[in-house]
Each structure stands twice: as structure tokens, then as C-alpha cells.
């Protein structure tokens, strides 16, 4: 832990990364010729990718121990279960 505190991750690089991804998202949404469903999936993936970057580097989850990461992870399956179960209504 002590080492990571001195060697910070390259925050500006990650900022650039996020910026590029955002531009890519906007371009995808408005300029690029994909079908709606492909766009939808790509946009969601891009958003998750960005969220993942923020969580890993800015919230330094990457450098935390698993038992702390667990706290961040626990609600996610619950959220997924709720949304999926309610949506099945319209899928079946």
C-alpha cells in the first residue's frame, strides 16, 4: 500500500481515456451508421467501461483489498436481479 501511495496512477492519462470514450459515445450516438440495437449495446458497453475506469482508478478500487471491493460489488447482483426479474414480464 505504501508504495502505491507514492507512485500514483497516471490520472491525466485516464482523464484522456475517459474523454476519448465520451467523444466516441457521442459520435456513435449521432454520427456513425449502425443499427439501433448495435448502437445500444455499444453505448452501454462504453458507459460501463468508463464507469469501470472511474471505480478502479479514481476510487482506487484497483489498489484495495478484496474485502473492501466486496462492499462495492455486493449491491450489483441485487440490482441486476431486480431489473431482470421485472423485465422478464415483457420478454416472455
Amino acid at each position: 500500500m505504501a508504495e502505491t501511495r507514492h507512485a500514483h496512477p497516471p490520472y491525466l492519462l485516464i482523464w484522456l481515456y475517459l474523454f476519448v470514450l465520451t467523444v466516441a459515445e457521442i459520435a456513435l450516438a449521432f454520427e456513425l451508421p449502425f443499427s439501433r440495437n448495435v448502437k445500444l449495446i455499444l453505448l452501454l458497453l462504453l458507459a460501463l467501461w468508463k464507469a469501470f475506469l472511474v471505480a478502479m482508478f479514481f476510487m482506487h478500487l484497483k489498489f484495495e483489498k478484496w474485502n473492501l471491493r466486496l462492499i462495492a460489488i455486493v449491491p450489483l447482483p441485487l440490482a441486476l436481479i431486480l431489473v431482470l426479474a421485472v423485465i422478464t414480464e415483457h420478454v416472455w
Partner: protein
Amino acid sequence: MAHATATVDVMRPPAPAERGVDVYNLKLGMWVFLASEVMFFTALIGSYIVLRFGASPNPWAQPGKVLSIQITAFNTFLLICSSVSMVKAYASIADGNVKLMKVWLLVTILCGATFVGIQVYEYTHLIHHGFQPSGYREGSELAELAAANPVPYGAATAGLYGSTFFTMTGFHGFHVTCGVISMTYVFIRALRGKYSQQDHRGIEVIGLYWHFVDLVWIILFTIVYLI
């Protein structure tokens, strides 16, 4: 209690009976709180997903038709910048540079405040044009546009659009506001010299909150404005 001396690393918890998660209370508490925030936004975003899914085949208003993308894209950019400045503030204080930390913190506060300002502007603008939580206001500019072009403006789903849009972004905006207020409080404490290389818990914890709010926005921006 001020028993902590310089030799004690306050960024770690006092040796617990058995190693817990090995982080100090405030940080653990913040993570636990964020877990509950995830569930709160699940209720709001989940409802949006479900409602939008269930509304098909009625089309939803197309991106960019009702909401202005330029202005929110700029806002997104601001929030990302503020996340970087926040993490820079944290990195500075971890390296012992108090002055730089204050600068970065101030930048963060300014970005956050601007974000809120722009959102307020966006809201007034939208309401002025007839977009409100219950849908397109009757007789307004948007209602007429929607009547003329039902598909791109999602005339059939306008009510849901308004409900979910204002609830989700409104609560996100509320979180940003809370963040700005708490960061101001932290900033004042920073001016009073409360943070040091040995003990900068407040900075780290408010940072966690701020990045979380940014993270939520990343999701919201995509699913509300772009899809």
C-alpha cells in the same frame, strides 16, 4: 480523540482485534454508504429501464430532439474534469503538497458548481419549452412539435420520458449539490490546515463520494441522453 501521533498511520485503522477490511472508519463508512446509494439509483434507473422497455413498441423521443446534447456533453466533460481534479487533490496531499491540494480542490468545487448551474439552466430551458415531469405541457412548443412528428418526439411515451428524466437527473443533481456543499466544507477545513500527509481522511472520503456521483452521471448521460 487526539491520541494519534505522527508515528501512527491514521490512514489505517487502529489495529483491530482481527484485521477487518483494514481501512479507517470514515472510508469504510463511505463505501458502505455508497453501496446503499447504488440501490437507491437502482430503484430510479431500474424503473426507467423497465418502463422504457415496457413502453415498446411505442418509440421513445429520439436523442437530441428534446434534450440538448451539446450542453450536457459539456457538462459531462466538466464532471470528468472535476473527478480528475479531485483525484489530483488527493494525490497532492498524499505527497504532502498541501497547497496544490487546495488548488485542485477549488477547481473541483468550481467544476461541480458550474455543473449544477448548467443543470439548472437546462431545466429552466426545458420547462420553458414545455418539457416537464408530467410530459409535454399542453399548448407548448414541444407539445406542438410532438403532435406534428409523433415518432421522433415520442409522443406516446412523453409522460414516462418526463417522469423518469426529471427524477433521475434531479436526484443526480441533488447529489452533486450535496457534494459541492460538503467539498466546500472540506475546503474550509483545508484552509484551516486540518489535512496533512499523515491525515487526509476527509479528502479521500469526499473524493470517493464525488467519483461515485461522476460514475452515476456517466451511466445517466449514456442511457438518458444518448440512447
